């Protein structure tokens, strides 16, 4: 490996990248506004859940219930007529509908244990279960308080003192911010490397390069380094200014260790991108493969939905994807404050799979040129 050649080629990559204004614009958007908007918009805790209440009782208790829901999780409850409940659920305007029956307060006071109906739109899968348990808890609290106020306290049960570690307030934008940052690096690293290969072949420059005293390994290394350096720098800046600055994450662990993790991931992503470049014959083909591969890599990496919820076979498959290790490693370092002693298996997995793709792409490099002619 001749490093002067590698650096000359890497400089060339950077210049080509700088020349494409639109691409640069998209890249910057992806690392700034896009992360912020998705992190705040895609908050995974339950927020602004919409609830409608039909109050057929009109008592003090029913009015208290209508006001009881915590603001950080629910929108202001809207009072409607009982007949409207189904229609609102159907159009998606409301996710929860609480129907307080006539004489509810009187029945509670009389110990008749009246039933109260909660309708839930279960297609709103991200909120339905969680929201229902929030409503149940608030209702418990509210009815308990009401009864205590009337001098009829319920029996005291041992409490569960639940605390959240690492993120006491369960601020979800920390998590989503980090995940969006990771998703963006995955997308960009794979696409830039793959497109760099396909583009060079479509323009005939790759063939030209191979007639020069240049090794395929040097070409690949240069592309991986150049694209990797740009993304690493942007990821670092996005972490500092967007995730820490705007979203308020205070990294629990070492930021340099995190960046080292990003670098090892970029080695994988670059090699993988080149691999995709060598197996696709044209840019449209690359684009398709890209979507087919990157969407699952991102959505199933454990960043968007919990890994444990997937079927066993899919969990096993996703263990082979470094994006899973990447998410796990980042969460561990930035949020739980883990050190290298804990995260090294993720590093090893990422680098190992990266090396595999690098070797395979190298092997394919000349062959795919010869078949093209």
């Amino acid at each position: 490996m001749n490093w002067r050649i590698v650096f000359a080629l890497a400089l060339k990559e950077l210049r080509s990248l700088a020349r494409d204004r639109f691409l640069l614009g998209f890249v910057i958007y992806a690392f700034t506004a896009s992360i912020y908007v998705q992190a705040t918009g895609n908050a995974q805790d339950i927020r602004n859940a919409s609830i409608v209440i039909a109050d057929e009782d009109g008592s003090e208790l029913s009015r208290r219930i209508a006001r009881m829901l915590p603001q950080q999780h629910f929108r202001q409850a809207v009072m409607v007529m009982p007949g409207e409940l189904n229609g609102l659920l159907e159009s998606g305007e409301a996710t929860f509908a609480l129907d307080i029956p006539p004489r509810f307060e009187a029945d509670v006071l009389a110990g008749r244990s009246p039933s109260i109906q909660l309708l839930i739109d279960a297609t709103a899968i991200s909120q339905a279960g969680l929201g229902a348990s929030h409503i149940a808890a608030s209702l418990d609290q509210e009815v308990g308080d009401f009864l205590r106020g009337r001098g009829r306290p319920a029996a005291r049960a041992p409490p569960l003192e639940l605390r959240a570690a690492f993120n006491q307030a369960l601020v979800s934008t920390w998590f989503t911010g980090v995940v969006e940052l990771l998703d963006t690096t995955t997308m960009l690293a794979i696409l830039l490397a793959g497109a760099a290969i396909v583009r060079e072949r479509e323009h005939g420059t790759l063939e030209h390069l191979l007639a020069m005293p240049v090794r395929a390994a040097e070409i690949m290394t240069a592309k991986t380094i150049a694209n990797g350096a740009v993304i690493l720098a942007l990821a670092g800046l996005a972490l500092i200014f967007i995730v820490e600055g705007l979203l308020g994450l205070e990294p629990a662990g070492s930021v340099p260790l995190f960046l080292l993790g990003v670098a090892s991931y970029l080695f994988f992503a670059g090699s993988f991108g080149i691999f995709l470049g060598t197996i696709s014959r044209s840019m449209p083909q690359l684009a398709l493969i890209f979507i087919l591969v990157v969407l699952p890599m991102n959505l199933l990496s454990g960043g968007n939905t919990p890994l444990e919820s997937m079927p066993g076979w899919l969990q096993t498959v996703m263990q082979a994807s470094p994006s899973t290790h990447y998410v796990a490693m980042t969460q561990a370092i930035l949020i739980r404050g883990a050190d290298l002693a804990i995260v090294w298996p993720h590093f090893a997995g990422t680098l190992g799979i990266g090396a595999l793709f690098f070797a395979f792409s190298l092997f394919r490099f000349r062959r795919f040129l010869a078949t093209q002619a």
Partner: protein
Amino acid sequence: MTEPPPWAARLTGVRHVYAKSVALDDVSLAVAAGEAVVVIGPDGVGKSTLLALIAGATRVQQGGVETLGHDITKERARTSVQPRIAFMPQGLGRNLYPTLSVRENIDYFAALFGGAPSKRVDALMQALGLAPFAARAAGKLSGGMKQKLGLCCALVHDPDILILDEPTTGVDPLSRRQFWDLVSAIRGARPAMALIVATSYLDEAERFGRVVLMQAGRIIADGAPAHLKSEHGAASMEALFMTLTGAQVPDRIMRRPPAPDAPISVEAHGLTRRFGAFVAVDRVEFSVRRGEIYGFLGSNGCGKTTTMKMLTGLLPASAGEARMLGRLVDARDLATRRRVGYMSQGFSLYGELTVQQNLNLHAELFGLGRDSGAARITALTHQFGLIEHTGAVAGGLPLGVRQRLSLAIAVLHEPEVLILDEPTSGVDPAARETFWQEIERLARDQQVTIFISTHFMTEAERCDRIAFMHAGRVIAEGAPDELRQSQSAATLEDAFVRFMQIGGAGDPPTDTLSALITSASTKRPKRAARLLAVARREILEMLREPVRFAMALAGTLVLALAFGYGISFNVEDVSLAVIDRDRTPASRAYVEEFASSPYFELRAALNDDRAIEQALRSNRATLVLDIPPGFGRTLASGGAPPIGAWVDGAMPFRAETVSGYAEALHRRAIAAAAGPGAPVRAAYALEPRFLYNQAFRSFNAVVPIMIGILLAMIPSILTSLAVVREKELGSITNFYVTPISRTEFLLGKQLPYIALGFVNFLLLVLLALLLFGLSIKGSFIALLAAGFLYVAATSAVGFVSSALTRSQTAAVFGTAIVIMVPAVEFSGLMQPLASLEPVDRAIGALFPTSHFNQVSTGVFAKGRSLFDLAGELGILALFWAGLLAIAIALLRKQER
């Protein structure tokens, strides 16, 4: 027929500027109907710009341009006049469609001009020698053959003005003759047709009635060839050119062929290359001595380039061997490659880098020292006249200047062997002369071996020996004079033509020419025909890449499976760790209640506080229960001992869900720990009813939305490349210069993608019904209509980004990034629409996905009717129309 206009083309005071350089500076020119004008001049003086302006391909910046009596600056006038213009742009087949066959390319152009009778197309292909290759993909043709195909496409209709930009660059002498005979025949049959040609072959210029000589953006001479020559006292066009452009013509370098005992530096024995059944190079033999200039001549597509690629090691030989500097050619042999310079036929340097950056890059690649590299670059930029271009981006330079840059790079490292594949095609005469001086000097002074292919006979005459190749075989070899004499020909060109005829190339039968002339199309071009032609071409290109086609269909299904199973909001098997400081039956019963539930899985029993932290930090536990000492005793005595619990907050959604489960289990676990006792009657009973998805299955909720997400991504990514790809690869010029409107072009392109998207949609619906067990509860008609309108809308999104961007990479990435947010985040998957912040909800509403999801969820889960969903369908239709209108507005019908 209307009366022909007096002027075929008239330019008044035209000025055109690219970034900093002036391409045309106050040019006025009038060409009468029926006139034949040739434009000559050094590279980069604005010839191509002039032609592109007349053809309407480039936007007029300043001045007036009238073509066939219409003001071409106005779009409407351009539209009405374009069917009567034929334009062939510069560049070796850059405007062709490489995956389409020769015949399909021609048919496409024919359809744009209202269709040509197949007799005429056959005749054209016969006349240009393309008939035997009708089924071959254009991308697999040799450079010269592509050029011929380009001509064929330009001549497919009967124009009133024929504009050809360096049409014969890279075309072999025999084909060149045939081509000009053909043009003469067409002119004979259509005397009113004007002909404007730019060329770098000065002998061709003699055939024209009028020569326009340009320099530095201005016309410096204009008149009949004979008249101009006598006026300036020049013996030939070449002399005239050199005199008027002020080119220095140094004396010829005197040199001698190398001695017969000089060592052999390049040789081939039985060298053969097959592509499938096709034998491109057939048992070729030659040996070239050190310091020799060896010319490689032959008809287009005879195997010259393939031979040269085998010499450089780019292509492995199928049989036989090639030796370079005494060593067998080996792709991994870097040491030999450092001693060889290679210049490929098409421009293969980095178009996005400047001239200087390209040179610097190669100096590094060849390992030249910093100082010696810089000195060498300075010398070469002077020598090849690149000084004024050093800061310019290479891709924007005229062909001739680019070729000079390629040459400079090929000799940069002072190689011992130079392999040059048509290095002077498209280069102006003065620069060609300079180049040959350099070649001859290298051969004489440094004993550099030159292996060169060319179509210029004046250049062939300067070689020590030449080989004639035909159909993969070398049919004659020797010194130029010997070969000429062996055919008793007056010129080497005549000898070439005879050799080709011996090899089997004949003149086209004359009757095909007459068929060509008489069978012109008189049909008026139809809108629908052009639209369908574009659609047909798009389908063909899609089918030529079966992998892409299959992936577009199968890929969606794979994704659907991954997402359907993978995206689940249920939390199960959460890892649980316990620190039991009590160790009584009560505490064990409490833990057992958690461990036996499907939500938790007991992974570890811990001993101290440090272990708790360790377990959480290393992600071995998501929930840790901390049971205090004396728990059992206190509970039995009626107390309420608090249980401590830690949940991993790194993933808030999971943490919240886990907390919910823990709270619920806690109540049951306390009851279990306390043992059987009188149950307390609850004050009330909450009856939750999960509607539309009673089983609370993730599938039922996720799959309908997932269909929306997948159909947002795939069609839009595919269409995002549809236009920008043509921009990047050059075929967009056809859109600029043919009578196809923006609407026809985009709608035609969209039809196949809508069809593909709809098939995708149907597959996804089938998958949802059969595999994920969903059922149609609402209006199926509404779902089908929504699917159709939705893929139409999302594929139109791709066009918008395609019209905006300039590179394919930017288009794909931009589309993916821009779509991802509204399609995945704000469309109801992650959060119900009603819960979004107003801004986010607006973003979601401004994108079709949220509306499609309303229909999809409504039909699959909620049983909504067609009437109920009509509003959303209307919105989807509006999206399609609106997005297409935006794309049409953004798409330019001219180059800037």
